[in-house]
């Protein structure tokens, strides 16, 4: 058997793959957080809850209406995005003039409410969500066995990340968003509807989280707790990457996912704290984060 650093190649690649998959979700979620923070200056604590909502909407669509994975991949983000936009419009908006900490506290309360409600309705245990027929089975890559759905999850999330980056960097809408991040008053005086842009951004961020949730549904179980388990790790990812750049958020997400996967091979006990350790080291050496701009 081929060995690498005294570890069977199979185990090494297997964990690398798991790391890449986790990294895909970290990247998608920290991307959404970074977009929302960039424009609204709000740390969206409800991001985990919106991720959970995405998965749950997909599961409910299948269980009650027989609507499958592919339509859910569009419907769930749309619904959660609209809900997010409504919340921004009616409540979150009132907090912009205050200390950004109030935004964090508000979305924390929102996350507790949503999570509590789903726990009350569906219990704390997870619900299985079947892999879509098109993506079942696996491919034998010669050195390892790759379940098709996992490959799809990596490719799809990478596509979404790059797509979002392109929209923000290369389109007119993206240039409005970037300009509003720099100087909202000036952008507004050019006749661009900044309040609408803020609503749109929060809705978009929520939709991205929900998309990650649908993508995660066949891999992890659909459970009310799936959001709060991941959100704290994503916060650490965001601290490591710094929220200054969209690309930074994406790259850091994948890097830390892989780092976590590899730790599972070499030192399993530390695998669930390795991201926090990396965060502490980055804070010592480069407090603004790897891609951060602010001091």
């Amino acid at each position, binding site marked *: 058997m081929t060995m690498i650093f005294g570890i069977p190649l199979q185990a090494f690649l297997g964990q690398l793959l798991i790391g890449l998959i986790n990294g895909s979700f970290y990247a998608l979620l920290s991307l959404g957080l970074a977009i929302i923070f960039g424009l609204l200056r709000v740390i969206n604590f409800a991001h985990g809850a919106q991720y959970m909502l995405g998965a749950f909407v997909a599961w409910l669509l299948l269980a009650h209406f027989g609507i499958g994975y592919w339509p859910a991949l569009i419907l769930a983000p749309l619904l959660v995005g609209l809900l997010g936009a409504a919340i921004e419009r009616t409540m979150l908006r009132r907090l912009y003039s205050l200390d950004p900490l109030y935004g964090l*506290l508000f979305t924390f309360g929102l996350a507790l409410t949503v999570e509590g409600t789903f726990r009350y309705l569906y219990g704390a245990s997870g619900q299985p969500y079947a892999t879509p027929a098109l993506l079942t089975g696996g491919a034998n890559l010669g050195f390892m066995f790759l379940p098709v759905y996992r490959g799809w999850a990596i490719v799809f999330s990478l596509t979404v990340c790059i797509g979002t980056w392109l929209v923000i960097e290369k389109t007119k809408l993206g240039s409005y968003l970037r300009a509003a991040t720099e100087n909202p008053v000036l952008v507004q005086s050019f006749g661009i509807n900044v309040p609408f842009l803020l609503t749109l951004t929060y809705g978009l961020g929520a939709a991205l989280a929900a998309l990650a949730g649908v993508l995660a549904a066949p891999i992890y179980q659909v459970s009310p707790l799936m959001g709060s388990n991941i959100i704290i790790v994503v916060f650490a990812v965001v601290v490591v990457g710094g929220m200054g750049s969209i690309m930074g958020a994406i790259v850091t997400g994948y890097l830390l996912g892989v780092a976590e996967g590899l730790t599972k091979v070499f030192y399993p006990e530390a695998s669930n704290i390795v991201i926090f350790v990396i965060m502490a080291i980055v804070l010592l050496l480069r407090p603004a984060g790897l891609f951060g701009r602010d001091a």
Partner: protein
Amino acid sequence: MTLTLELQKQKERTPVVAQTVFLGLGLALLLLAPLFFYPVFLMKILCFALFACAFNLLLGYTGLLSFGHAAFFGGAAYFTAHAVKEWGVPPELGILVGVFGAALLGAVIGFFAIRRQGIYFAMITLALAQMFYFFCLQAEFTHGEDGIQSVPRGHLLGFLDLSQSSNMYYFVLAVFVIGIAIIWRIINSPFGMILKSIRENETRAISLGYSVRNYKLAAFVMSAALTGLAGGLKALVFQFATLTDVGWQMSGEVILMTLLGGIGTLIGPLFGAALVVTLQNYLATSEFPVTIITGVVFMICVLLFRRGIVGEFYNSRLGRRLGFEHRHKH
């Protein structure tokens, strides 16, 4: 001239009198409370109130939002429980072990967290506290999911039997009063003034030559140590220490208590803690999950009620007439 001075003196006298009356009334109520309420319930309120007041030292008076105070509360509960049960130390020493452990933990977490400001500070404390949670989940001495069970309360100073609930109540009350007195002393000292100046305008505090980082770290460690006092006390009251107290939900709970009672008021958190604990006790028997209510109250507080109960009272006409000033900005 003399007339205005005389008037001013009179004006100053009312608040002092009013505040003394309130203080005396409050103490009398706390002393008599076990006649009317279940002591363990009261002790739970006092422990959480001290926790929230210690947390408020950081949020209300230094302007730092920590999202990781559960690590100090639950950590101290573990340290005290372990010291009392495994080493057989007396309760007062056990609590000191908890305080010292929490202070040490606070120094480590604070050292990293003060490198960033605002929301980053909140996220870093949350992440590091979560790391401590995973440590507690795996470490041997915490007994993982089981926690440390049947911790003996022991004899205070060798003669006062704490397993009697009235003795325990007055011990908890004494520790609570001492804790509040320490916090009062800190915020009214020159050191506390500097903390408030950091809260109001950090850049200016730096330009005035204060080493803001050291002050922040000192405030963080003090807050952690006082939180540890509350955590150790709670371990003795309930005679166990579990993972619940180190989880992130606990960090959120203490924020809610402080927000509800009044950020930046000395005794506001006491009211917040009393409300939240009462709510939890009330809902404990029903199927309805507390988190939904907690979450909704959180949102309402942030949207409409940012001054909190005591803050609103201070700002009301009666509060102003009695001379309470609420200086914290919103």
